[in-house]
């Protein structure tokens, strides 16, 4: 049954890309509704459009006439026995025409609410939902006029290789950006086409506890369950989630909100040593620190020193594995140069350059304490053994910005390197990064992280690396990062943000809708959709961060001994806490930390024995003997002179 009629005037003509239609006052049509227009003269001709603007007006010639007829009394205006004729006039943008050629103005035909099939056709989803290898990924439900039609994204255009990346923007707390991404990743995991291989997600948790409970079921309402069913997505938490978090500066307690006793066992420490840090020295050193000379010296260290036996030219042999080893080397070089008196150069490097690099590098383990250790211990992601449909959450929420940069740069570089060599374990990786305003701002300094994000945006799709980025203000994110995102998603937007030039293509009505979008509703732009489409998505089936923290409150930081015991027991549950406590109770914390790192690195069968060996025997401190005064051979005279 028709709900409207296309109208065209000289001032408001119907064109191949836009048309106008009117409806009854009471109508289910609204902004974002998809409609179908039928040509009265040609039954084969059908046009689909999406409503982008709406107008209402009456036959009142001028507002003054309303004043006159009511004698200037607004109350009396409300008592008019007849209500004026008024119109609901809608503007719609053409989504698709059948036949597609010749492209002609929209016929002045009747307007119907689109059906499920119409929605699929209008959004050109039929191209990737049918066939032997469909690539549709449910993103939400198009809801209008009582219709709930699933909307699908094309996996080839979401995760590559045709296009890739997703960018989602909106007001914090109201746009439900994280929830949308959680649902979408879940949907991808359930619908990623088999012929495209294996897929995993790496999520950087950069604030609060947002992504800390992805393996726990969240509360769903009946409405959510119904939407899941309609979308063909099973409402369940992620099955394979692995959490990584650096230590706190104490080196034993994990720097994450997932520290509840029931959950902390799943969190792997993320700890890097000298080599890992040195590979990304440029992330850790600011622009002023790095010049060509310093750069050359760092390269020298990486290529010729770290991890190999090295002669400093002053008769000392060095095996640099840790920051401590590196510092010893620096000291030896500087002392050697000074003692030799042969000038200020050491192997073509000036002493001042060596001092600067020493100063910066030696400081790294202090600045990123907990993430970078100076004892060479390493805890890392399972490079080469990524699981299909696995989610790897890296919690850097409480890590200082420098550490976050290092984590991000290294993880993404490794992902890229592994995907390039096809030895990551999966074929496609989704990298979810929130706060792009911070990491890829449009007007901020050129940082290593921003360069990496640009690199993913521009070349990731060839590798199978898809960036899912989120931010509050899209206009303030680097143009090439958002521009390269094939799929753009918008939650509730800030009105000021909508006033920026990037949103000029949207009609005023669409902007208003965006500024007032309810929670759970998004506007989606996708390469196959010629116009933005509004969809509703169900609440993600995982526990929200806020709920998770209430249900599993983070544990207080453990005393040193208890933290060590927990770390060791995670490696071998048969260990007895009392035995371990006795073992570490009287030892220096630094020694214990080093021993624990050695165990974690070696993963021995007999954890206790290895730990005991690594800890070494206790060296008893020498008790200084009491010094007795020796009486003078001849007593000094009491005579002062």
């Amino acid at each position: 049954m028709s709900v409207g009629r296309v109208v065209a005037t000289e001032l408001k003509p119907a064109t191949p890309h836009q048309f106008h239609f009117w409806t009854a006052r009471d109508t289910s049509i609204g902004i974002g509704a998809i409609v179908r227009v039928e040509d009265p003269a040609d039954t084969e001709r059908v046009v689909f459009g999406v409503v982008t603007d709406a107008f209402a007006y009456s036959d009142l010639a001028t507002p003054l006439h309303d004043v006159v007829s009511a004698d200037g009394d607004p109350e009396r205006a409300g008592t008019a026995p007849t209500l004026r004729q008024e119109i609901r006039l809608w503007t719609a943008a053409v989504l698709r025409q059948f036949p597609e050629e010749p492209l002609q103005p929209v016929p002045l035909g009747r307007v119907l609410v689109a059906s499920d099939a119409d929605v699929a056709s209008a959004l050109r989803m039929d191209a990737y939902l049918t066939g032997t290898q469909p690539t549709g990924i449910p993103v939400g439900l198009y809801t209008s006029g009582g219709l709930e039609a699933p909307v699908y994204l094309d996996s080839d255009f979401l995760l590559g290789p045709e296009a890739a990346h997703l960018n989602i923007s909106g007001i914090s707390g109201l746009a439900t950006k994280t929830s949308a991404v959680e649902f979408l990743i879940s949907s991808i995991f359930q619908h990623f086409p088999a012929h495209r291989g294996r897929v995993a997600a790496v999520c950087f948790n950069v604030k609060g506890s947002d992504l800390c409970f992805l393996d726990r079921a969240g509360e769903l309402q009946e409405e959510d369950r119904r939407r899941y069913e309609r979308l063909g997505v099973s409402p369940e938490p992620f099955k394979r989630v692995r959490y990584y978090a650096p230590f706190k500066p104490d080196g034993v307690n994990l720097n994450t909100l997932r520290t509840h006793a029931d959950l902390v066992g799943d969190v792997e420490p993320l700890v890097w040593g000298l080599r890992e840090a040195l590979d990304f020295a440029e992330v850790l050193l600011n622009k002023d620190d790095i010049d060509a000379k310093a750069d050359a010296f760092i390269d020298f260290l990486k290529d010729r020193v770290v991890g190999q036996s090295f002669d400093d030219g002053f008769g000392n042999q060095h095996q640099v594995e840790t920051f401590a080893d590196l510092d010893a080397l620096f000291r030896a070089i500087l002392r050697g140069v000074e003692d030799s008196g042969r000038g200020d150069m050491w192997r073509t490097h000036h002493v001042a350059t060596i001092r600067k690099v020493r100063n910066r590098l030696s400081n790294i383990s202090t600045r990123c304490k907990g993430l970078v250790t100076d004892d060479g211990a390493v805890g890392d992601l399972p490079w080469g053994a990524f699981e299909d449909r696995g989610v790897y959450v890296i919690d850097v929420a409480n890590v200082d910005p420098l550490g976050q940069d290092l984590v991000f740069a290294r993880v993404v570089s490794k992902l890229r390197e592994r995907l390039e060599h096809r030895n990551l374990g999966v074929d496609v990786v989704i990298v979810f990064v929130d706060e792009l305003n911070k990491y890829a701002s449009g007007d901020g300094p050129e940082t290593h992280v921003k360069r990496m994000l640009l690199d993913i945006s521009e070349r990731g799709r060839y590798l199978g690396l898809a960036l899912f980025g989120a931010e509050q203000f899209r206009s303030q994110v680097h143009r090439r990062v958002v521009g390269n995102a094939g799929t753009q998603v918008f939650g509730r937007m800030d009105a000021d943000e909508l006033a920026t030039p990037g949103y000029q293509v949207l009609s005023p009505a669409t902007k208003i809708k965006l500024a007032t979008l309810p929670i759970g509703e998004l506007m989606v732009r996708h390469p196959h959709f010629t116009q933005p489409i509004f969809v509703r998505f169900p609440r993600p089936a995982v526990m929200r961060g806020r709920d998770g923290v209430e249900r599993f409150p983070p544990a207080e930081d453990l005393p040193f001994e208890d933290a060590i015991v927990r770390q060791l027991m995670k490696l071998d549950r048969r260990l007895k806490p009392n035995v371990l406590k006795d073992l570490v109770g009287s030892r220096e914390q630094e020694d214990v930390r080093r021993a624990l790192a050695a165990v974690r690195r070696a993963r021995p069968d007999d954890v206790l024995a290895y730990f005991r060996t690594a800890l070494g025997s206790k060296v008893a401190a020498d008790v200084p003997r009491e010094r007795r005064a020796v009486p003078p051979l001849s007593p000094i005279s009491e005579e002062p002179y």
Partner: protein
Amino acid sequence: MARLPWLDAVLAAGAVPASFVPDASGGRSDAADVTGADVMEGSGLAVHELRHPPLAPSAVTFVDGIQRWAVVGYDGVVPLISAYVAAAARRRTGGRLHTVAEESRRVIVTAEGSLSPPVREALRRSGEPVVDLKDDVPGQPGRTLTAAGMRIERLRESVERAVAEPLADRLPEDEWLVVDGVLSNSKDLASHPRTLGLIKSHGAQYFTGEELRRALMLPPGHRTSVFQPHRHGSQAVYSWYVRIWPWEGHDLLYGLLRVEARADAESIARADAIGAWLVNERKPLSTPDARFDRLLYPIHDVETYLRSRAPLHLVTDPGSRLPPAATAATAATAEPGT
């Protein structure tokens, strides 16, 4: 615009195309007769303030009609006129108007007997309804067109009656029927207890002297005494004037309505309430119609409805009335390279 099939046939039979829309074809001519009236309320025509609460029917149906006509050809000096008349009734409930009845007719008006045989035959074969001006022998076009206009007006009135009378027959107890124009040309309407005729044009004169002065200088929110017009139409009706807008600064007839109702004591009893009701009906204003001071919005709405459904053009080529030679010359200068 598609050509009128019947016109193609008569042109082929020798008629000459024409394109002329008479000035009066957009509206109606006034019944400009001079008559008298008997005052039925009190001893003489008095002025009454409308103090009663207004009548508030649960639903009201408004009836109006339109007529359009144009000379589309000539057979000799005999005009061939294409005419369209329509009427509609729109019922108001909850403040909104909805069409409950409508009727339209398209006719050819001509002096059939004066047409040349081929044209008459072509007209006959077209099967189109013809209104024959047989009593008006074609002479000067102006006289013929005046006669044609009156015939078309009568046709329009008949269509209005065809719409209104069945509605009046089945009008529920608490509803009213308001007709734009006189009631006295319909027995059914004139005798109906809840049907009103509203007259906006005041060509007919019922009073003289002081009574005329009282009638035409009515203050706003007042009415005259109820009177019975003499020899007005075929049916007896009661009537009274109501002023709905102050006339000062405009014209004596500004905001002046004449109401017709059943010739019955009940109409006298209801005159105040009906008058107050009509004053209330002045909002919303029926602008941009120039007659908004007397044209009630619901009547305006019916007219708008009818106009929106009327054929846009009654002539074959509304775009230009330039002579053929001038048209050709214009086309020639528009050609590239000339």
